[in-house]
């Protein structure tokens, strides 16, 4: 009833090839953006902005990157955490070497560094796929993590082994460092995430996205259509690592403020993979759903028992989170392999026919 496309006739292919051909989708998108840019800053407290929204957006960005690789191109990576690390360390290095340059420039540049590293580790993907590639990306994960610990130059030989973010400003307003207000950081992160999501959406809906999906679905047929596998796969690695790198830089500079090598360990890679699986393989909105669920789940598990009058220790909450996460993965793989994004589509379909399902 509320979600009907009846009466919306398209008179040109241009209108039908648009990314949101249905009017309600466009309205919905505008609403979401309005809530994100105006609503949440108005009603959300410090905790909401700093500990829920910023991490959610950063993780969603990384999940989009991973989804381009796994969901769209069918290449499994277990090294996303390390590529986020590359972005974070590159941004730290660049911004401490040349502090006068605007930090936004360095965040983009660190994405490019991560992109180059990603292409390097993506090279084996020509010859190997599936599980084999997953294991090969573990090489990237462990090697890069080792670099973050052992190569002192990367963290300016800081005795604590951590990288700490200094103050940077944008138009005279502090956006990184201890004095930056959560709301300012939120706006910077939100803007970057929105723009990059728009780019990702354009890419996956055009020729490049079709080539990726062709490689994913049937690589032999794709070759015989004239799609060259290596460039297509390397491009996916490049774009994916760029997103992971920017997300990593944002994570350290605008969310945590400091990070140790442990922040980019194999568990981070797993968690991102789970976001993609639960959110929905090959769906950008799924990356947001997945990031929201996986990020908010531990918060709920920690606080919900208190609300019910039960008291569980933080260790127990953590263990429960593990079990629930694992259970959710099995649930989605078995019941709905396309994840939350598919459930969203089904809901839209239901709305379309409501209240007369026949």
């Amino acid at each position, binding site marked *: 009833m509320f979600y009907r496309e009846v009466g919306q006739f398209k008179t040109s292919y241009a209108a039908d090839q648009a990314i949101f051909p249905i009017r309600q989708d466009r309205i919905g998108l505008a609403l979401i953006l309005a809530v994100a840019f105006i609503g949440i800053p108005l009603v959300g407290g410090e905790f909401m902005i700093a500990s829920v929204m910023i991490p959610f957006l950063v993780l969603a960005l990384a999940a989009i990157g991973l989804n381009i690789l796994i969901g769209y191109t069918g290449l499994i990576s277990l090294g996303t955490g390390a590529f986020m690390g590359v972005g974070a360390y590159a941004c730290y290095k660049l911004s401490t070497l040349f502090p006068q340059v605007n930090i936004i420039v360095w965040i983009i540049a660190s994405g490019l560094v991560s992109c180059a590293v990603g292409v390097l580790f993506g090279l084996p993907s020509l010859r*190997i796929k599936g599980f084999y590639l997953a294991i*090969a990306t573990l090489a990237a994960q462990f090697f890069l993590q080792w670099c973050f610990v052992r190569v002192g130059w990367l963290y300016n030989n800081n005795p604590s082994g951590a990288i700490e973010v200094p103050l940077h400003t944008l138009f005279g307003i502090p956006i990184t460092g201890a004095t930056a207000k959560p709301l300012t950081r939120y706006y910077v992160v939100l803007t970057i995430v929105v723009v990059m999501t728009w780019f990702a959406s354009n890419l996956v809906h055009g020729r490049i996205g079709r080539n990726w999906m062709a490689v994913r679905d049937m690589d032999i047929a794709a070759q015989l259509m004239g799609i060259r596998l290596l460039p297509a796969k390397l491009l996916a690695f490049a774009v994916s690592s760029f997103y992971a790198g920017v997300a990593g830089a944002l994570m350290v500079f605008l969310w945590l403020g400091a990070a140790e090598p442990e922040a980019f360990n194999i568990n981070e890679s797993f968690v991102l993979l789970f976001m993609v699986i639960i959110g929905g393989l090959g769906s950008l909105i799924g990356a947001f759903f997945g990031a929201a669920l996986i990020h908010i789940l531990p918060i709920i598990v920690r606080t919900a028992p208190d609300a019910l009058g039960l008291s569980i220790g933080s260790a127990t909450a953590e*263990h429960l989170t593990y079990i629930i996460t694992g259970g959710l993965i099995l649930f989605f793989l078995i019941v709905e392999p396309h994840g939350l994004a598919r459930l969203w589509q089904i809901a839209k379909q239901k709305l379309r026919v409501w209240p007369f399902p026949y």
Partner: protein
Amino acid sequence: MHLLYQIFIDPFMQMGQAPDLLVQTLWEGLVGGVLYALIALGFVLIFKASGVFNFAQGIMMVFAALTLVGLYEKGVPAPLALLLAIGVMYLLALGVERVVLRPLVNQPDIMLFMATFGLTYILIGAGQLVFGGDPKEMPVAALGLPKGAIDLKILGGLVSLQKIDIAAAIIASIMVAGLAVFFQKTRIGRALRAVADDHQAALSVGISLNQIWVIVWFTAGIVALATGIMWGARSDVSFALQVISLKALPVLILGGFTSVPGAIVGGLIIGIGEKLGEFYWGPLVGGGIESWLAYAIALAFLLFKPEGLFGEKIIERI
């Protein structure tokens, strides 16, 4: 020039000057390799019979050991705890078959692969929830395993062999031999190989897939338990062992996913290779290269010999 010397000459000079150290390093690598091989063996068993790439195999090892130690710490006598741990592994096999394999049968392999990630997290959470997350000590003596070391005076030096390591090598050999007999000689073993070749053909001659899967996962669980006891005796039992268990993955790449001898040879190569690399070449770059050397070796193999040492070459057909 100096760098080349450090890489290509100096380590070998060191080996020659202190052969006892070399033997000690080789031994450590060998024992590590045997344990990697055992984890890889569990992978191969499951992969052969159900086509599932079981990412959770390493975690099953930790989970099994943790169950054993946890029960022992709660006052259960060691032999009984061992039996109970075996029982838990059987229940796990039943559960996996019911909850994971049966609903996901005929799905793309990659789905099943990702499902084992879910299993991994459930096992980590459940193990810690029940037995706590703190590292535990394996009751070596109570299990009737030897403790202490044998010191050999050879090559003008002293080489120290932990008795538990010797026991590990012996138990591993017995298990591998036992599995070989099981595969070749028993009815279930033949059924297993039939299932591995072709699920549907096996079904059509009356082999119960579900039953086979339970048996295979249970067998892999027992292998995991044995491996867990050995690792646990060398260090403490906790989920920090997870990182070690992932090392079995490069072993598989070397050996091929379907080859039992491959798992063993691959395990030994990786085990010895990373110990030698760490000891002689590690200091050049600041040490700690053990954490990624195995993966680098595997990656090199993937690029030049993607089917592994013993794997079958695949001809793509359309």
